[in-house]
């Protein structure tokens, strides 16, 4: 206090909450604006006594909460219905009741974090961590058992005599001016002070150690491991519960995987030719897809244009040309059948090439054939 001379505020301490309330009311009524009350515990009714208007912080919370709710519900929707749809418990992908708890929690979390953040950043003027009242005897008193008030000297109405009068009238225990200290004036936030960095590192180490212990050790101790220790059948393991000793069960007969269509014409090329119809239209996209798949899967044996000029140099029997009358006169279903089921030495490609892609290849083969056997009507 002694080594600087800029006045910050006039402070006073009181011993009873009634006195401080009345003092605050008097200071407010005298027209002071820049003053604050410091008490070791919340004094009910202080907001009114100081004439503090309702805080706007609630709106920050509201906006953050709404953003949290909307953001989270959209996020879960995207995760579980668009990006990584999984059937859980036979429920639809978009099962909103299951998402409410998380949405609710994120709403609360975001509104709390943003509120506290806004409070620190805007209302406490972070990163300014210093205050002229720090380390004064006034602050020591009001943080233990006294109730204090401080009126700033920059207040337009600042009038020391009037203030002393008000304080005295309300039984102030002590009245003293507080000056900007040297420390305050020369204060610079020292973010990169080695001590501070060391502290941060210490906190990081301790908290990760705690995390490690609780998640890797504690969670596997009694009683937390009871959930893991339940009677159950592990995958790929023997189990005596069933007569055949297999822990894993075969699916019920006739079970079909999602998105899989059983192929009913295995070994029946004629039926395939008779009943199957190409479901795709020969659009540009289809033909391009067909070309890509044909060049990838078929061209090593059949050649880039289906002429049967294999690139395998006799390591595999050369296939016949796909431009033969036979193949040209086949219905689409027959070609599809060869890809799906194979033919003599040609293997089946049903596991490598999806149904749609197989039909696209059929279209592409038709285009290849047409290129060698163009009709007159094809001429421009």
């Amino acid at each position, binding site marked *: 206090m002694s080594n600087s001379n800029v006045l910050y505020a006039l402070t006073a301490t009181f011993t009873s909450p009634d006195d401080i309330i009345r003092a605050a009311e008097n200071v407010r009524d005298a027209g002071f604006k820049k003053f604050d009350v410091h008490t070791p515990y919340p004094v*009910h*009714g202080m907001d009114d006594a100081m004439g503090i208007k309702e805080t706007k912080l609630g709106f920050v919370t509201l906006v953050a909460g709404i953003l949290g709710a909307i953001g989270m519900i959209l996020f879960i929707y995207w995760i579980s219905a668009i990006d990584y749809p999984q059937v859980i*418990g036979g429920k639809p992908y978009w099962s909103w009741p*299951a998402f409410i708890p998380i949405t609710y929690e994120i709403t609360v979390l975001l509104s709390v974090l943003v509120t506290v953040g806004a409070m620190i950043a805007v209302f406490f003027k972070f990163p300014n961590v210093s205050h002229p009242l720090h380390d004064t005897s006034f602050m020591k008193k009001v943080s233990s058992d006294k109730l204090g008030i401080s009126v700033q000297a920059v207040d337009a109405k600042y009038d020391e005599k009037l203030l002393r009068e008000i304080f005295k009238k309300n039984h102030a225990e002590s009245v003293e001016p507080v000056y900007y200290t040297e420390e305050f004036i020369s204060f610079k936030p020292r973010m990169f002070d080695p001590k501070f960095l060391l502290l941060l590192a210490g906190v990081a180490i301790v908290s990760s150690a705690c995390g490690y212990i609780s998640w890797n050790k504690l969670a596997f101790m009694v009683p937390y491991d009871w959930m893991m220790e339940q009677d159950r059948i592990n995958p790929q393991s023997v189990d005596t519960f069933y007569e055949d000793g297999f822990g894993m069960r075969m699916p019920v007969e006739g079970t079909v995987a999602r998105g899989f269509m059983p192929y009913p014409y295995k070994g029946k090329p004629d039926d395939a030719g008779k009943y199957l119809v190409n479901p795709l239209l020969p659009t540009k996209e289809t033909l391009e897809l067909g070309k890509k798949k044909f060049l990838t899967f078929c061209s090593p044996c059949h050649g880039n244009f289906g002429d049967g000029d294999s690139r395998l140099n006799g390591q595999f029997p050369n296939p016949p040309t796909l431009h033969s009358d036979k193949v040209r006169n086949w219905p689409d279903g027959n070609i599809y059948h060869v890809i799906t089921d194979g033919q003599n030495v040609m293997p089946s490609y049903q596991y490598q090439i999806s149904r749609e892609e197989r039909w696209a290849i059929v279209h592409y083969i038709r285009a290849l054939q047409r290129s060698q056997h163009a009709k007159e009507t094809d001429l421009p």
Partner: protein
Amino acid sequence: MSESHTSTELYTKQPFPSGYAKVGWGLTAVGLALVVVSYILNTERALFNNLIGFIFLASIAAGAVFYLALEYAVGAVWSTPFRRVTEFLGYLFPFVIIFSIPVLLNMHTLFHWSHSDAVAADKLLQVKAPYLNTEFFYIRNAVIVAVWIIFFYAMSRNSLIQDLTKDQRITKTNIKLGVAFIPIFAISISLFGIDWLMSLEPHWFSTIFGVYFFSGTVLGSLAVITYFVVDFAEKGLFFKGIRKDHYYTFGALLFGFISFWAYIAFSQFMLIWYANLPEENFWFIERWENGWKIVSIAMTLVHFWIPYFMLVARPSKMSPKNLKLSAVIIVLAHFLDLYWIVMPMYNSSPVFGFYEAAFPILSIGIILLVISRRARKYNLVPIGDPKLQRGIDFRL
């Protein structure tokens, strides 16, 4: 400045407005007539509605005892000036007992498990029989209601004596009673809800039902208390200097319990919906199909969304008009909640008629009569309570 420091003009008893009794008698007469008519026309339907009315009155009365005990147990100050309203509601217990008589005389109509041939044919009911049999049911519920009445009577009598003697030791006695009552209440209210409401469907499992009933009970009771407190305050029947701070606490508590109810109700629904076990989910399916969907959705609206948004903002918790309106909505929602629990057992699709209106009208009439009778007789403010002045001075 300020009322809080210059001593308050203490409460002086004022003539209680006769309007309450008039409206009360009117509603009671209409309700009673409707009840008689419904018993003559359709006894079964009347019985189910009687059960709703009985549970409603019981939950308002039991909730009031809970708040009474709570105030003493936690040393609440803000509620002391208004405690009498809570105490008056305990005088509903005689009517609770009267309402229960038709139900007790017709157990077989309401409770499937009370038929011995049904139990003989049903393994599950046999397993539950040691708990769910008529003798134990009677004994259990007689004990529960008796305990409620004893605690209520002891605390409220002490409080009234304190008006005359101003003896501070009475507060201490009541604190002990209140602390003892709270765990008793936690168990008894759960059993009460399970016995009268959950056992209507004895095959159903829900481990949260006791809490669900508790949340509806305390919310309904608080809404009734809030309504009368605000109404009396507006009519100037309490003391001078009732502030928005006082209103705010009621608004905040209502808001809290609205959210609590929604939390519990949704938890019950979501866990059952998610696990989708047949012994649990059918209860909700019954309340979704055959037109019940509308009732279920309406209940979430009137029991949660509407009052929630009516009370969410700070100023709206301080507005007397808003408080009264949301209290009325919640009381009606409590009826709807009980209807939603009970009536699917009567009919597979929802029915609304004068049968359903009879018991709510009668119950509300009785509440008005009880309140006005007590309020005429006793002080509206516990003038002997040592916490009174602090309660009057209460600020946020």
